[in-house]
């Protein structure tokens, strides 16, 4: 791990998080005893089979849902008012169809009371980096799937939070676009030094991007194992063909398959 990890307390600590949903048929346990430590500037992925509570976990982290058990800390102290202070990019782009690319991107700043004028100016500077130059004034219906995802990510980034959660942001894209997005995201993150948590079911995606990978097991979701990806940065997609990488990938896939 080469990124700036300072020797202080983790920026995010999950302490034995559990979630139980109340339904008419009774209680459904979605998560049990999930503990994690995320350091500042780290890129961490969470992989697991579908239905293992990955999205539930992100919703709890973002502050949208409350955990049934456990606590969430930042720098060692409890962190309760997370809603609005953690960047969260959901699976669907959720762009507002009546707003242009530019006006979708500045939503967070607009909400926090920044004038539209200065928010737009700031966002315009980012358009190139996000591959949206020339499309600032287009509407979502005029964009391809990959572009919509990039607008959604720009919207999340412009909210300017230290910690950003990504919920399978590339799942709906075709393979080629997806690997382009991986390369692009790697470049972005390496220049930002923000803390990123990526939820995915794509093992290769998790390994190529992350410093560490949390492997979850299902029903109810729990942490099976934590895998460190000791590969140098900056990374490139070509690393996916290296023997070390393939060994690691096989290891994670075996972890996912095992039933304990």
């Amino acid at each position: 791990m080469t990124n700036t990890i300072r020797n202080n307390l983790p920026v995010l600590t999950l302490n034995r998080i559990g979630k139980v949903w109340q339904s008419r048929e009774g209680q459904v346990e979605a998560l049990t005893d999930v503990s994690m430590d995320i350091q500042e500037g780290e890129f961490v992925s969470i992989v697991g089979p579908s239905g293992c509570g990955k999205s539930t976990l992100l919703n709890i982290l973002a502050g949208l849902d409350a955990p049934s058990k456990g606590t969430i800390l930042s720098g060692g102290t409890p962190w309760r008012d997370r809603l609005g202070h953690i960047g969260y990019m959901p699976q669907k782009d959720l762009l507002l169809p009546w707003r242009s690319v530019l006006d979708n991107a500045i939503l967070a700043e607009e909400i926090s009371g920044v004038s539209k004028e200065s928010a737009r100016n700031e966002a315009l500077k980012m358009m190139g980096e996000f591959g949206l130059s020339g499309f600032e004034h287009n509407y979502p219906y005029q964009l391809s799937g990959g572009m919509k995802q990039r607008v959604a990510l720009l919207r999340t980034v412009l909210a300017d939070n230290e910690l950003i959660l990504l919920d399978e942001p590339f799942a709906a894209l075709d393979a080629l676009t997806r690997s382009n997005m991986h390369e692009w995201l790697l470049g972005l993150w390496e220049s930002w030094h923000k803390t990123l948590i990526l939820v995915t079911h794509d093992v290769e995606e998790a390994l190529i991007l992350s410093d560490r990978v949390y492997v979850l097991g299902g029903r109810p979701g729990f942490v099976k194992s934590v895998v460190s990806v000791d590969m140098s940065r900056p990374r490139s997609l070509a690393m996916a063909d290296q023997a070390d990488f393939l060994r690691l990938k096989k290891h994670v896939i075996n972890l996912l398959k095992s039933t304990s």
Partner: protein
Amino acid sequence: MDMNEEIKIERRWFASFDFKYWIIPICLTSTLLVLWELLVWLFDVKQWLLPAPSSILQEIFESRQLLFNHSVTTISEIIIGFLLSLVIGVCLAGAIAYSNVVERFAYPFVIASQTIPVIVIAPLLLIWIGYGMIPKIIVVILISFFPIVVNTVDGLKSADNDTMRMLKTLGASRWQIFVKLQVPYSIPFLFSGMRVAITLSVIGAVIGEWVGSSSGLGYLMMRSAPQFLTERVFASIVILSGIGIFLFALVVVIERLYMPWYEMEKRQN
């Protein structure tokens, strides 16, 4: 990375005007008119019983000044009434959607107002307010605000839950979610309410005029029928339905100009 991703081609809505689409209705209408003309001529139907399309057309031309004068009254009633019910309807819908308390208080009255036939209320308005335009405008409002309120409330309440949660993670307050998501989301619903309301406004104005008035197309019909000026009654009907169709089309055009994204999103899904 590769930026040459495929960009969906933008097509303007009016480019989709399809002449083939209009052939059938045009043929059907003209066939019916020709048939009508022939039957009247063939069976020598009296003018006062059923005038032929040609004599209705002739009447429209000859009495154009009279028809125009009465149209002005009726159109004014329709437009003033419709715009007022738009303002009232939107405000009421906003309050109902935003506050549960208002919803519980106001919605029963909104629904009750529709269970009383306007035809019953109109004579009362005549007693209370008298002749003139105001009671007609009130009838128009009473009949046309309902679809606006119901549709707009539906629109405000059916905003996507995922998007709402996304806005919360951006730090949005309840009011900000209302203004930035629910209100724009409800606009297409508001427009479909307006399309119904504008046609009801035409009916409202005529009902108002029937009950008691001294001008307007409804008044002209009421006056012409006992005199067996049947072609004039038909002429009034033609003008009235022309007004209705024109105003309806106007709402549709405004709708498409105001939110071009809506048509495109609909076509994509």
